[in-house]
């Protein structure tokens, strides 16, 4: 079946990417090729240690490959003078262990990425409060992370990932630390975010049920992509 998304210009292209650790003793990625299109919702599956998180780090410009090339809208990431700026403008991250900053309130956590944006202070405050409202945390603006439940923390983290209106959301097992009920709610939230904002979502998960809701499932084994299936026809965004 030809991919309907092929009509879109590629957003991210991964070209024969390799990543090794410990001076080549660990081959985390052994030649990965992928093309991800604008607006796609991609699930990455695979057994533990297959390289999912490593791949996500590279896609999110948190790490650089030992060889190969990653391009964003046709431009190689290695040509960016400041990858921080690139992350701030285009990427939002959600992690399994939430990774909120412990000394900052929910609101302040959402404000942190906005340091890099040319918005006024009241503008930032307004945006952050709105985002927390949107993820159902409007009543917890000034709570410290340690006072929040796991599900609540992940909601704050989702609001934070949306702070700078990223074009790509990267989520590494976002429900991995949550019970079934909370996990379902967080996934509903992420899907509704994806539908409303039309951003590209790349999600690592172990849960086949979650993966099934994606447009496309990529399966990894031993640092390579072994399967790439389109589950839902992805509608082009023009």
């Amino acid at each position, binding site marked *: 079946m030809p991919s309907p998304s092929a009509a879109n210009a590629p957003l991210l292209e991964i070209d024969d990417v390799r990543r090794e650790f410990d001076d080549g003793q660990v081959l985390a990625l052994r030649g990965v090729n992928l093309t991800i299109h604008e607006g796609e919702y991609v699930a990455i599956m695979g057994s533990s240690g297959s390289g999912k998180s490593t791949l996500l*780090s590279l896609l*999110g410009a*948190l*790490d650089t490959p030992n060889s190969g090339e990653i391009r964003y809208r046709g431009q190689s990431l290695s040509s960016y003078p*400041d990858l*921080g*700026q*690139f*992350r*701030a*403008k285009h*990427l939002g*991250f959600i*992690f399994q262990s939430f*990774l909120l*900053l*412990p*000394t*900052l309130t929910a609101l*302040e956590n959402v*404000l*942190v*990425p906005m*340091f*890099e944006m040319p918005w006024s202070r009241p503008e930032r405050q307004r945006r952050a409060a709105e985002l927390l409202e949107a993820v159902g945390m409007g009543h917890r603006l000034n709570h410290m992370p340690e006072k929040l439940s796991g599900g609540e923390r992940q909601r704050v983290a989702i609001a*934070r990932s949306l*702070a*700078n209106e990223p074009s790509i959301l990267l989520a590494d097992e976002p429900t991995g630390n949550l019970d079934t009920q909370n996990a379902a709610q967080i996934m509903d939230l992420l899907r509704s975010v994806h539908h409303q904002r039309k951003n590209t979502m790349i999600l690592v998960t172990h849960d086949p049920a979650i993966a099934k809701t994606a447009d496309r499932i990529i399966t990894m084994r031993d640092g390579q992509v072994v399967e790439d299936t389109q589950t839902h026809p992805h509608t082009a965004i023009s």
Partner: protein
Amino acid sequence: MTLLQLTLKNLSRRRVRTALTIMGIGLGIGAVVALLGLAWGLEASWTDAYKVRKTDLVVRRSGGGLIAQPFPDSASEQVAQIPGVSQVASLLTEVLSIESVPMMVVSGRQWQSFLWENLKIVSGRLPTSADEKVVVLGTLAAEMLEKKPGDKITIEIDEFEVVGIADGGAVVENGAIMISLPLLQGVMQKDKMVNFINVRLDPKSRDPHTVSQVIQQHIPGCRVDIAEEVLSQSDGVKTFKAMNWGTSIIALLVGTFGVMNTMFMSVFERTREIGILLALGWKRSRILRMILLESVTLCFAAGIVGIIAGIALLKILTLMPWMQGRIEPQITIELLSLALGLAIAVGVASGLYPALHCTRINPSLAIRQV
């Protein structure tokens, strides 16, 4: 939320560690304030003394420390002949142990010279002649010796009567015992010897530098200083200042390494958080600024603590008997700005290396850390 607010939150996380670090570098800054306050005070006190005496130049023997070596008084007549010189007054100044006070300046002043003019009698009177066996005490000296007019005072083995107490207008004058020159020469068995000649210049005369050169040419082995510079030119004071600076620099270096250690501990335990900030898109330069701001804020607080500690130390020192009447510590805006400036410099110096370390963190690896 601003970077400064974030900084304050970070510093208040480990209150004890932050407080101890502030104490450490604060004491260093305090030492600087106290030591420089003393050194600058010493200079200023003598500059004041020459000002109230309206002395323009000071002639003494070259070499020697704070208290100059004696030379024959005949030199003063030669100095008086030099064009541009309007008045001369010779002095024999000794630092002696007087009764319960271990170090007291005894100032033997040429009789009927201008050196007696600035003394404002607050009680009693001035001596009536050069050989009346009496002394006049500066106000501070009177307090330290607990003497009033009519009391007896022993200098070396000779007994004198206190006839007056005078305000000399400067701390060094007020801390001294004033006596006529021939009497002190007798006590010290330094007949016709002096160790300073104070010179007043003709107001219309050539500039002091030229006159002082002429004096130097006429009297071999002497050295002439402009009054304001006498002390800063003296080897003793130069050594004192060098030692103070040396001690200050060591204290600041010790403090710098202390702050650096704290900052390294702090950034090591926050590696993961810095990874998160990088993942959220913070530029490396912003991380650098955050860490530098932390160390500078820490040291700025230490600067305030140090200034308070330094001033307190100076106040305590001023109460010490050996300090009284000798040095009035200088707590000037310059000194306080210097202290704060040094504190900020220490903040930058100690934070730079830890901050640079943070900019090299790989966010992906940092986030994996638990």
